[in-house]
């Protein structure tokens, strides 16, 4: 049985169910690196160029970790575009080359190109090419991909119920996740999935705000159509897929009555975020908004203080808007 490694980073948080099902259906074993930990982060920081953003560095760490295991292939797709006329980010387009140039001793790399910006014919061709590594049966490849897509949609539906993508993947794999709790605030939490849902990169921000009594609303829990509709109100179409999703979600949440405030988690050095954050900040009219920039710095105190202050402010704001005069004067 062939062993395929999938690094636990970047678009793992969106597409892992798809690829795992795909490879498993073709009779391959899927190996992933463990969830991000300090060792992986350190290895990534050491391998990657200083100027790259933290999620990419962490991805380097995961790849390095996987290299230690006995693998037949390592799956590092070149994600150019996952929808028409949009891109992810230049770094995603170069990730396989960056890794090949900096990490020695890689197992054979599967670097298929996923580019739907103009046509989806190329993807089909690449999927078949990918499948031929394991079987010659075209029908089996087609079925495996279909099955993968089904699992992916299922996982996305799970995320719609309030799980983060990382929790949704764990639920999908059979471990139960408890997200019920006493919540009195509704908080919109935005950010690129690979930084927001990675508990090490985002310093577990999702569970931190949950513990402070906030029900978390993520882009995945919002209605996809209204996100697109809101994003279309911007004068020029945002050509980064995630950027557009964030702008759309922010504007959508801005109009929703039940949401009290929004937090945007950006990575230091992220190109799209540097402009998207600015656009969101200028377009949002009704809700408090906070932008948090994270990097490999590990001091959690500052983050906790800012989150607490933000939640306190939201509670006070709600109290004053309900005309409740505090009995403490």
């Amino acid at each position, binding site marked *: 049985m062939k062993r395929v490694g999938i690094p636990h980073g970047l678009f793992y948080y969106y597409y892992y169910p798809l690829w795992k099902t795909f490879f498993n259906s073709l009779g391959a074993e899927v190996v992933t690196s463990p969830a991000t930990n300090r060792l992986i982060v350190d290895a990534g920081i050491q391998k990657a*160029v200083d100027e790259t953003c933290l999620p990419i560095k962490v991805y380097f760490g995961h790849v390095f970790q996987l290299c230690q295991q006995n693998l037949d292939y390592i799956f590092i797709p070149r994600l150019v575009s996952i929808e028409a006329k949009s891109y992810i980010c230049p770094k995603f387009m170069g990730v396989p080359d960056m890794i090949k140039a900096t990490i020695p001793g890689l197992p054979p790399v599967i670097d298929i190109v996923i580019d739907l910006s103009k046509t989806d014919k190329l993807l089909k061709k690449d999927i078949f090419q990918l499948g031929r590594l394991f079987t010659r049966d075209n029908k089996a490849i087609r079925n495996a991909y279909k099955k993968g897509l089904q699992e992916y949609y299922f996982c996305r539906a799970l995320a719609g119920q309030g799980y983060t993508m990382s929790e949704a993947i764990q639920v999908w794999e059979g471990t139960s996740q408890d997200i019920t709790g006493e919540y009195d605030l509704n908080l919109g939490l935005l950010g690129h999935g690979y930084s927001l849902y990675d508990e090490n990169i985002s310093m577990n921000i999702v569970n931190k705000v949950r513990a402070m009594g906030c029900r978390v609303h993520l882009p995945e829990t919002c209605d996809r159509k209204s996100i697109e509709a809101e994003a279309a109100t911007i004068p020029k179409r945002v050509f980064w897929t995630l950027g557009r999703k964030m702008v759309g979600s922010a504007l959508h949440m801005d109009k929703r009555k039940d949401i009290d405030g929004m937090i945007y988690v950006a990575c230091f050095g992220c190109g799209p975020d540097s402009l998207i954050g600015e656009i969101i900040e200028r377009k949002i009219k009704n809700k408090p908004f906070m932008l948090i920039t994270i990097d490999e710095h590990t001091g959690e105190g500052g983050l906790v203080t800012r989150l607490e202050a933000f939640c306190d402010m939201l509670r006070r704001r709600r109290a004053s808007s309900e005309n409740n005069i505090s009995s403490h004067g």
Partner: protein
Amino acid sequence: MKITFPRMGNTHIPIKALLQGLKLEVIPPLPISKKTMELGVKYSPEYACLPLKINMGNFIETLDQGADTILMAGGWGPCRFGYYAQVERDILKDLGYQFDIVILEAPDSRLSELFKQIKKLGKNVSLFEVCKAIKFAWYKLNTVEQLEKKLEYILARVADKNAAEKVYNNGLDAIDKAGCYEEVAFALRSTLNKMEKLPHHNRILLKIGLVGEIYTILEPAANYNIVNYLGRLDGEVIRSIYTTDWINDHLLGGKIKKSNHQHIINCAKPYLNYWVGGHGQESVGSTVDFAQRNYHGVIQIGPMTCMPEIVAQSVLGKVSDEYGIPCMTMYFDEHAGTGGIYTRLEAFMDMLQRRVMEHNKHKFDLVAGRN
């Protein structure tokens, strides 16, 4: 209508000529000063890249002078530049400025569309006059570039570097002021003559390839004038990007003059196999090309957090190892500590010089009579 546009190197000379040819009142951007930087940095997003901040400074200065229309370029990603104009417009509107913005979107090498956009800019001008204006601007651009190339060649060789720079600056002024072909040609010829007459030194000459992001390469203020500084250290700089080549490759589909763009892309192939936006692939390809042409070293420059250049930088290490060509990467932001930048350049040049001497050891021994 008083029209203005952002500054990028010497491109303000041909752009001004073009807009004047369209019978528009032009307020050209001021040279980028400390004040420009300060204004731009103050009002731009903190983590935006340097060109956006400099653009903002340019716009605020010219809007204060009375400009009411901004001419800006656009694009469709994945590089951030495509979204500059949108962010800049929002910020300037929020600052309370009243203006129109004309965005020339990248036309996917369809020349007719760009031509239409330019034609629409000019009010009350005939098609003939538009063609004439474009042709004259193209001529001026070519002359300016000839002068730039000459300076890069001569600055490394002359003994009196200040004199060379002075002649060059006077030449640029003369081309800027020239109103017809004859005057431009005269200004070019006389400047080139003056440059050629300057006496040379006989120290070791180093050939440096300069690769990276287009704005940082073209605009001296965005790279703290390292091109001239390298010249002063006896380094002959050849850039990977010249404006005419860029226009030829990206706007005109390589139709006006011979292009080596495809060759550069092919050179990048084993290292960076895909287009990554901006000039990432060109940076890698040019480095390989420079190495094959036996340059002494390559310097990659870009604005801090430039995404395509980071990808290029990641693979440049491997190129450097395999071709044995020293490569150095420098990122620039509003931090203007030129001391650190110049020290790094001097160290790099010293290292290259020592490599050359090591390589040609027998020759130097001969000269010193130690054979």
